[in-house]
């Protein structure tokens, strides 16, 4: 599909001026979250599938790849279309557990 872009009339410099502070805050919140997890249990970052995906997402975030947001959305998503045979729980967990999916095949 061809995107029909409506660019913001803000200049690149104005975009940075307008949004830098709040995104600086988001960056620090991320760092604080990871430090908090480490203080609780340094092994958790490897043990919890959500944190493993989170770490992979940070690699994308730090890269120069185009469309980082799209890549991260895909990384967090179940890529299959296979229905569940039965309802396992009501809520989503926020990340797709690829290793658990492999085990149930």
């Amino acid at each position, binding site marked *: 599909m061809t995107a029909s872009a409506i660019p913001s009339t803000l200049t690149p410099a104005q975009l940075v001026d307008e949004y830098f502070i709040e995104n600086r805050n988001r960056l620090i919140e991320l760092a604080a979250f990871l430090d908090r997890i480490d203080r609780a249990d340094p092994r958790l970052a490897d043990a919890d599938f959500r944190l493993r995906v989170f770490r992979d997402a940070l690699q994308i975030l730090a890269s120069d790849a185009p469309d980082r947001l799209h890549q991260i959305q895909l990384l967090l998503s179940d890529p299959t279309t296979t229905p569940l045979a*039965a309802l396992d729980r009501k809520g989503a967990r926020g990340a797709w557990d690829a290793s658990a999916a492999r085990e149930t095949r």
Partner: protein
Amino acid sequence: MRYIDHHAHMVSRTTDDYAQMALTGCVALTEPAFWAGWDRSTVEGFEDYFRQLTDFEPKRAAQHGIQHYTWLGMNPKESDNRELSLEVLKKLPAYLEGPTVLGIGEIGMNRVTKNEIATYADHVAMAARLRQMVLIHTPHLEDKLKGTRVTIDVLRQHADLAPSRVLVDHAEEHTIELILEHGYWAGLTLYPQTKVSAQRAVDMIERYGPDRILVAGACDWGPSEPLAVPKFVMEMRRRRHSEDLIQRVVFDNPVRFLSQSPKFSVPGAVTAAGRA
């Protein structure tokens, strides 16, 4: 600026929220039937809820000058219960006749189970047979991409259901193209923690243009923001977008989509056709 919130679960909200929405320019809203946070046990429970949506909420909204419309159906969170879903489906046609019922919704999937797909497919078949408009919930978080793909696969089995009469809601960056390229309307629901923020919604408007895109605040019983649409308007202004473009997204687009139902009208509204 006048706006229409096409996805607002007002049964979970106080009258003060209606007042705030009215004060910030809301002139109409549509309320899809949804999950109450716990599972109902009988079809009578659903009928009481449908009466609340068709009788009580329109009166509560009218006290603040807001027109209230609704969409009815078995919501995705309870649709895995096939026995109860089939009972609700039997009762549904009578309620669809109501003067403020715009169509079937919000239907769709939660965890994308076989039962959920069967219940969703039953609703879509009913919508095609009864020529109803449809509002579809797409699943949360890691299930969204999968659920959106299955949602569209089922819709495409019904050539008699015009894509222009179907709104696929809760779109995000990884699903919006799929929805738009098949001719459906895409809904962006603005939430403080999940789904889409006002900033990302504006990004998507900038990237894909305003055609067939709607924004809403959800007004859920969980963390959500009744004033999400006016806050989206503020974000559009922060990017220096024109008032015409903003009005197109928050007022003209919902009028254009919802006016496909002869039951929908907004007093004093500029029609979609008039602004085309």
